[in-house]
């Protein structure tokens, strides 16, 4: 069974945590080649939306569809096509960079060659055998990004991917994101950094209090648009 898809849709999706409403009746479609920027203030629902797309959070109502199939019908087969870089980095600090990538590579059925290539992309081929606990935040972030992309996912979910990166690394990651989209991936990127988002994202999704307040093509003047729709930036 394969689970390839060229679009992911949320159809009238709501998600409540107890009495708190995290996402309210949100509908949205992202297609292959899109770099969709999820923007909004803290508590707007960005991370919940990423959790829903990653199938780690189940909707209270509504449906998440990958291509023409609902997420719940696909299960493990679908997860092979998802890559998530979360705010927490999903790395074991006690293990080395190489051990981390090998472990996740084996879980995804990825060979050792790709692990070495990922280490090189992260700029850590010289320090592959060092424990992650000794790495700076930027090094961890680069490693976590490569871990998330190790299995060539179709849907790439990036929650604050630029945290802790220096200027050069930001440029490298931005270029990597563009390459992924050009290669047919659907990239969903949640960030607070409007300056970095501008010029990178191709679509803007603005969230406030769990509601979709704008879904439009990206254009210049993102900060001004954000202020108008969401409030201060």
């Amino acid at each position: 069974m394969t689970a390839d898809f060229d679009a992911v849709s949320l159809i009238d999706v709501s998600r409540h945590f107890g009495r708190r409403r995290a996402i309210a009746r949100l509908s949205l479609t992202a297609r292959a080649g899109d770099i969709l920027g999820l923007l909004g203030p803290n508590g707007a629902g960005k991370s919940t939306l990423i959790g829903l797309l990653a199938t780690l959070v189940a909707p209270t109502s509504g449906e998440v569809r990958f291509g023409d199939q609902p997420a719940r019908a696909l299960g493990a087969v679908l997860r092979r096509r998802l890559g998530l870089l979360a705010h927490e980095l999903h790395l074991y600090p006690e293990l080395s960079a190489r051990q981390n990538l090998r472990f996740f590579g084996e879980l995804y059925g990825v060979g050792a060659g790709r692990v070495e290539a990922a280490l090189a992309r992260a700029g850590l081929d010289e320090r592959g055998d060092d424990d992650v606990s000794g790495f700076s935040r930027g090094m961890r972030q680069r490693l976590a990004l490569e871990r998330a992309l190790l299995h060539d996912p179709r849907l790439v979910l990036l929650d604050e991917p630029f945290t802790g990166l220096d200027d050069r690394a930001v440029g490298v990651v931005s270029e990597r994101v563009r390459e992924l989209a050009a290669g047919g991936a659907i990239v969903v990127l949640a960030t607070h950094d409007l300056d970095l988002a501008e010029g990178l994202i191709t679509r803007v999704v603005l969230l406030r209090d769990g509601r979709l307040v704008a879904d439009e093509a990206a254009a210049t003047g993102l900060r001004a648009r954000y202020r108008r729709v969401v409030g201060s930036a």
Partner: protein
Amino acid sequence: MFARTALLVLRKDFAIEIKSREILYTTLLFALSCVLVFSIAFVKEGEPLEDAAAGILWIAIEFAGTLALGRTFERERYGETLRALLLAPAPRAAIYVGKMLGIVALLAVCELLLVPLVALLFRSRLFEAPVLLVALLLAGTVGFAVVGSLFAAMLVRARTRDVMLPILLYPMTVPLMIGGVRGTVALTQTPLDQPSAIMWIVLLLCMDAVFLMLALWTFEPLMTE
């Protein structure tokens, strides 16, 4: 795929533990201290309280196991690696089985030291039927790890996990502890009560099977937020 994933998770836990030895040392130290304290209380002038050894052995296993469960899943909370495991294209129950086998292995190492120590301090005839003793310990430990791993995984993101784990775990494992203690008493009696010991082992295995089925069935829905 299921077995491969479980073994990968188990191997990863071993790799971390070999590097840090944190859980093994703390669990061992705790279990040994527990037995030593009980020996001071229950051994008077070289004479231990009748059948105390069986209860103390299983209490030490349960307390040490709770400590090991908490620390093992704490590792998966740091960096939210449990979410990364759940996102892998593998049966989610296999991840649970891998974690559970790690706890069984850790407790087995503890028991290798605990059993001789209890036998020595309490003058208990624990080695009268070694095969049955191993079967009893294995059946009880697997049952404890099956229930404990499920609760520890469920509570991994709860703020009150350190309080909630024993509250949920101890009542659920009372039947296992009763089976373990009564089975051990049967094995240390003079003469050896082999039929009772075998009955308790079979009962423990039945409980293991029921708990394992329930855990495999509920793990995925419980772990999806």
